[in-house]
């Protein structure tokens, strides 16, 4: 079992020094997601305006993979138009569900490519996706709220 393919340096760096951590204002939606099997948790806020992800702030408890994924996710989506951020989400999801067969695109996923190895550890895929799922949920709610 190739531990190093799971625990890439980039992942451990984000784990030790997570980006954009902490809950901030303003936000249109806040969600709380849990991984019921292991108990990892994330509280996440999204602030959208003019079709752009202005901020994503979060508070999370969990393993290195789930913490690093949250950090990388915020790097990837903050400042992006919502539809582009959704596309990035889709690409990350495909990578995670690919069982190690999908080749990640560094142009799109940046530090996210470090998670390619996680896809080979089925039990950890949920860890990597927790904050992404929370982000998608919060974003959908923000959009719903603004559209009425």
């Amino acid at each position, binding site marked *: *079992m190739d531990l190093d393919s799971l625990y890439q340096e980039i992942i451990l760096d984000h784990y030790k020094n997570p980006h954009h951590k902490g809950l901030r204002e303003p936000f249109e939606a806040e969600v709380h997601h*849990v991984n*019921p*099997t*292991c*108990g990892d*948790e994330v509280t996440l806020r999204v602030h959208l305006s003019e079709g752009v992800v202005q901020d994503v702030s979060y508070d999370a408890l969990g393993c290195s993979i789930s913490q690093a994924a949250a950090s990388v996710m915020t790097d990837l989506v903050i400042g992006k138009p919502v539809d582009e951020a959704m596309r990035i989400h889709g690409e990350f999801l495909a990578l995670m569900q690919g069982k190690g067969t999908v080749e990640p695109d560094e142009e799109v996923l940046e530090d996210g490519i470090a998670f390619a190895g996680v896809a080979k550890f*089925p*039990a*950890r895929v949920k860890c990597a996706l927790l904050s992404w799922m929370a982000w998608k949920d919060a974003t959908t709610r923000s959009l719903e709220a603004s559209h009425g």
Partner: protein
Amino acid sequence: MSVTLPGLLPELEVIRKDFPILERTLADGRPLVYLDSANTSQKPQVVIDTMVDHLERHNANIARAMHQLGAEATEAYEGARDKVAAFVNAPSRNEVIFTKNATEALNLLARTIELGPGDNVVITEMEHHSNIVPWQLACERSGAELRWFGVTDDGHLDLSNADALVDEHTKVVAFTWVSNMLGTVNPVGDLSARARAVGAVSVIDASQAAPQLPVDVAATGCDFLVFTGHKTVGPTGIGVLWGREDLLNALPPFHGGGEMIETVTMQRSTYARAPHRFEAGTPPIVEAVGLGAALDYLAHIGMDAVHAHEQAITAYALEGLATVPGLSVLGPLDAAQRGGAISFELEGVHPHDVAQVLDSRGVAIRAGHHCAKPAHARFGVQSSSRMSSYLYTTPAEIDALVEALEYTRSYFKLG
């Protein structure tokens, strides 16, 4: 081994070799003639071997275990869910819930679907007790009214008052696909549509259908469907509830405990979505794995072929039974209109005594009310004898049955 009938499984002798128990001899060295498959089916070697391999090499708890064995066990268990989803043609694997048996699946629905005074639940007079008692209890608890379709003299559902029975206050219409006593095949598509038309949910008890017919939940248009593992060449201890995903996620939890939660504090808990919401505690893991192997086995033979075999054997059995003086079959007399369980009476001999004499000849049938007392009461009988065949049944076994029935008549000195 002479008779061949159109529709019989071509490799019947090969198939029989898959079932180790069919080689057994009973008291007095008699070969086993197993005609009690509607009660429980026998298991092919591949199901047993798959379970043994799981227990000997991959056993671990699922979901919660992060180690390699845990991953293997989880994959095996969730893989079985995929197999069930494919077997019933479910739109989503999340719609497949593993229960202990069909009975638990029906109780799950009867406990979680909201009912109140003024509502009604419609069942039928030909249901198995497992599709009667849960609804009786639910109606007692909630004050809802229990109604039922009657049965005609020739063993079909009496739909003449259907419009009056299923009305705008109906919340549930629950019915068997194939009767375990009368063999009747019910119009499940029509009944499901009738339920939908009044805003009620439909529940199909496919316990006798799933072993014998291709099941396609989408094609039936039903909302929920249940079956039980041990009748589909799988192990005991496992059943299936299929339900439409939106409906399942709208139901409250059934049992509380490990695995069905999202989060728990001492004050309150929140619950996972389907299927996990309804799978509290350590599920029947090796049983699900065994059921997966069983459904693979059936799919490999092909449910159309299984069905054709059943029809051929049933027609042959109906013919054979008709030659026995004083024997009358309950339920439809045309094989095309029925499943493979055939209940009958033999004038002058009580069903227990029939079963006892048959057993002394190695022929295993069931005698009693087959958990369908109301259907028996409908025909003014308290019990009956029932033969039931399956994909391993041969025409020669039907001959053995008929011969043993003749012997029974002579043993009890009837004409």
